[in-house]
């Protein structure tokens, strides 16, 4: 029984959350530093996982398994494959930046009772989310995954509904109503998805008698567990629905713009860069592995939906007047790419999709956090309220530009690698879809550059004339992310090497092989 590394990685932030929440009301700064330290320590653990993980080795490594709820056939089973490692690392990496970026977002505005501790709550909730997300990445037991997949909604819900932008163009009253609407919408969408999934989870239990992913996959492969085609399809739909809400996939996406628009930028990053990844990750891990046949059956529809998400999200991003909502729709478009890559059923597509999850996390974090700094300065989310910022705050504008360029996946920056892999992977199997999806890169250029032009260039607006440039703390948030974007754009090999074996496994689970080139090229 070696040291339970995976559990520790999740337990640390969980404990940290409790500790942070327990910090007395007056000691706000202590809570912040505590949370930051914990998140950094968690990152160290995640790094250890990444190091200890052997790409060539067993499919699930660092596994832990303990009896939990015998009657439900549930075991506390953890284990990571390459994909999980990448995403755990991403999560642990982003949280410190989220905390640092949200340093002042939760300083109490109104005086509640002396026991009212918004700041402590804010950071505790962030850590709680981290713990649950990490566990859902690590769980190899469907039930364990489901529990944390659902439970993470609650802290997220409080983060969205409880903490908004400092100043709001419609005033605080309207802001709080919009916030709680967004929060409720987020929760109900995802809860509905989760409950539908619950039915499927129960159905799976009735079929398989236990929840252990490896066992079920093995049993299905060996034929000892047979499912009727219709059953498998229903179960698949039950699972996929929940993940499609989370991801989000058109037409289940409408909660995302509200949530990201109303939440503070760090929380928005938490939603789109971390929490939503669980959805796409789960498609890759659970939908494909548990229900290979049904996945193939559903592929055409899903590909079309993903395609719609790509184009639709991009077009709506063009039409937005609110910076954060714009980023939200951009994310919808990107999630379309990820899902496209997953269900293209080619190793390029799936490796690309996994890389895409990581890169999209980083790039969106960069763009959204800078946007948050911008908004916190001017107190408005409306694009029209800005102009000429580049002249007064060149560094801010520069980082914002790099974030935008990453969003339009400029070659040399990380997202390009993943996006191109996804496109190639799709193209090799479905040329038409691949070509239409390529339109997305033009639209991406359109909405990002329009955003940059309207906010940063042109004559300086009076309201932004006094705007200060990035502070040290903010630079500390943005600079590493940008460095990472460039590094992973130039040298993605480390991540790719971790991911590839897992993808190969998944491909074999769904009995798929890459289409081979027509001509054997002269080497």
């Amino acid at each position, binding site marked *: 029984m070696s040291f339970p590394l995976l559990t520790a990685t999740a337990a640390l932030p969980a404990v940290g959350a409790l500790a942070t929440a327990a910090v007395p009301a007056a000691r706000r700064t202590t809570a912040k530093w505590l949370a930051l330290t914990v998140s950094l320590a968690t990152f160290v653990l995640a790094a250890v996982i990444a190091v200890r993980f052997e790409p060539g080795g067993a499919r699930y490594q660092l596994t832990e398994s303990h009896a939990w709820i015998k009657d439900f056939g549930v075991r506390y089973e953890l284990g990571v494959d390459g994909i999980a490692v990448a995403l755990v690392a991403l999560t642990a990496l982003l949280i410190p930046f989220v905390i640092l970026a949200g340093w002042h977002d939760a300083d109490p505005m109104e005086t*509640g009772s002396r026991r009212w501790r918004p700041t402590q709550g804010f950071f505790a909730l962030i850590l709680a989310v981290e713990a649950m997300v990490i566990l859902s990445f690590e769980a190899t037991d469907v039930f364990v995954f489901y529990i944390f997949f659902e439970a993470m909604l609650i802290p997220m819900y409080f983060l969205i*509904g409880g903490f908004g932008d400092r100043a709001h163009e419609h005033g605080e009253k309207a802001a709080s109503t919009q916030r709680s609407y967004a929060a409720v919408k987020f929760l*109900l969408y995802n809860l509905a998805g989760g*409950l539908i999934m619950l039915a499927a989870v*129960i159905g799976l239990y009735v079929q398989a008698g236990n929840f252990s992913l490896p066992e079920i996959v093995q049993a299905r492969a060996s034929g000892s567990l047979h499912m009727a085609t219709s059953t498998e399809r229903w179960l698949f739909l039950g699972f996929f629905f929940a993940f499609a809400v989370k991801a989000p996939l058109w037409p289940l996406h409408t909660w995302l713009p509200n949530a990201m628009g109303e939440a503070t930028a760090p929380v928005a990053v938490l939603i789109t860069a971390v929490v939503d990844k669980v959805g796409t990750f789960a498609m890759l891990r659970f939908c494909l592995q548990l229900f290979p046949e049904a996945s193939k059956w559903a592929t055409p529809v899903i590909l079309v939906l993903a395609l719609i998400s790509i184009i639709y999200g991009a077009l709506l991003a063009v039409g937005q007047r609110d910076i954060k909502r714009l980023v939200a729709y951009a994310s919808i478009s990107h999630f379309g790419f990820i899902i496209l890559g997953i269900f293209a059923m080619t190793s390029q597509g799936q490796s690309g999709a996994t890389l895409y999850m990581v890169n999209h996390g980083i790039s969106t974090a960069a763009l959204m956090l800078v946007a948050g700094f911008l908004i916190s300065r001017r107190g408005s989310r409306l694009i029209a309220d800005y102009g000429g910022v580049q002249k007064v705050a060149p560094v801010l504008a520069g980082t914002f530009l790099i974030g935008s360029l990453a969003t339009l996946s400029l070659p040399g920056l990380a997202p390009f690698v993943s996006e191109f892999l996804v496109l190639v992977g799709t193209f090799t199997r479905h040329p038409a879809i691949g070509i239409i999806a390529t339109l997305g890169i033009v639209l991406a250029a359109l909405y990002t550059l329009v955003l940059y032009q309207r906010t940063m260039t042109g004559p300086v607006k009076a309201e932004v004339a006094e705007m200060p440039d990035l502070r040290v703390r903010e630079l500390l948030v943005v600079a590493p992310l940008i460095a990472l974007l460039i590094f992973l754009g130039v040298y993605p090999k480390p991540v790719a090497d971790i991911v590839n074996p897992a993808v190969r496994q998944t491909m074999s689970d769904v009995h798929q092989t890459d289409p081979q080139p027509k001509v054997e090229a002269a080497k």
Partner: protein
Amino acid sequence: MSTAAVHSLWTTAADPISKFQAPKIEYGQLSPTLIVIGAALVGVLIEAFVPRKSRYYAQVFISVVALAAAFAAVVALAAGGYGTTKAHIAAMGALAVDGPSLFLQGTILLAGLLGVFTFAERRLDPEAHGNRVDSFAAQAASAPGSESEKAAVKAGFTTTEAFPLLLFAVGGMLVFPSANDLLTLFVALEVFSLPLYLLCALARRKRLMSQEASVKYFLLGAFASAFTLFGIALLYGYAGSVSYATIAQVVDGTVANVDPALANTMGNDALLLVGAAMIVMGLLFKVAAVPFHMWTPDVYQGAPTPVTGFMAAATKVAAFGALLRLLYVVLPGMRWDWRPVMWAVAIVTMLGGAIVAITQTDIKRLLAYSSIAHAGFILAGVIATTQNGVSSVLFYLAAYSFVTIGAFAVVTLVRDAGGEATHLSKWAGLGRRSPLAAAVFAVFLLAFAGIPLTSGFAGKFAVFKAAAEGGAIPLVVIGVISSAIAAFFYIRVIVLMFFSEPRPEGPTVAVPSPLTLTAIGVGVAVTLVLGVAPQYFLDLASQASVFVR
């Protein structure tokens, strides 16, 4: 005619009276019930002889001791194997001592104990004329606002009868799920109903509503029990006996000696079906299943909140226990007749409760409708007709009762000038005013909503799983849909508490005595423990899931 003949016109020779043999009663195995009833009687005596000042303490003491002792007895019996191996039918076939009855009795006793704590709370209401007062009327007999009431308040009267009444109710509830013949069932039903009717009428504030609740509950309850009784009559007519075992045999057609009369009635299925339906209806009334639920919101709202909490928890447990035994022991033979009906009831109950709850504006009514919806979920487990079904229902009941008592206990804390502030609008911003109370209540709401890591989720999962294994997949789907609907209004309350601005004249959260704190604390603890590590209790439930017959 001869004199003898004439004599014989108005007299006849009686048979010599045969020897009357005394019934054999296993006092040890009935000890929980006996203890509670005995304590109740003592309580009555206390009302008669103990001076007014010290009654309260005496009553609380007696009740707590009795309930604790009874619980200890239950544990002892269970440990003694009466739940599993030595399970048998006691008291000449009147009462079953087996797993389900012991499990449910234990649950009821704990619920009763927490109920006593909330009953005994005297820190919430401001002192009247220097006397600490609980949530019961000073003098139930005196009309609201009348001189006599004022006098009673001034004199510092309190209705300490509440405690014996609670004990009587608990006593009835203990018998109810273990009743093994229809007569005992009926008597137990009345024994625990009548005290509840009274308790509902005892509120200190808003007495009009309290009395109205009481009268509604009483009339409808009596109406329902009349139906039950008629059902019993028909079933008796069908089987010629009220003992579960015999009826079951007759239903299965495995009865040993069939005399012509029995053969005649056995042929008549209408008796069986109509009778069974009417009895079941009486029980569905108690568990507040649609369409027999309409008393629930009014009574829950009007009754004193501690009573509501106790009632909501314990009554459901007892009634579902009785329902399980009836369906699993008496009527398994006609499973194919009642399952579809129960399907229909479960569906309308789940959906009806969830949907109507959406537009509620009073927290107590909201919880009432939520309890209706939960009755629907539990019914889904009842329908499974498997051992898993039984154990899941037992588990769900245990989990649910603690959440309920805890939730209502929190409701008693939120007060303004007019007593408890139950209107939802007054709860706005509670999370800002007193985060702790709001957080605790949020935990209970999340448990009601069945969010993972709370007991509510474990219970819901167990029940749905059992139903699915029983082949009731559609029921499960409808169940998850209605729990999605239900989630909406639980979330609404949370939004209200945390995300909306507090009102200036909003209510405050009173600081309760350790009694209520215990009730709430136990509630939270059980909610989380059963949510995170339910295995032990699931084992308990599954061990206790075999009926003796």
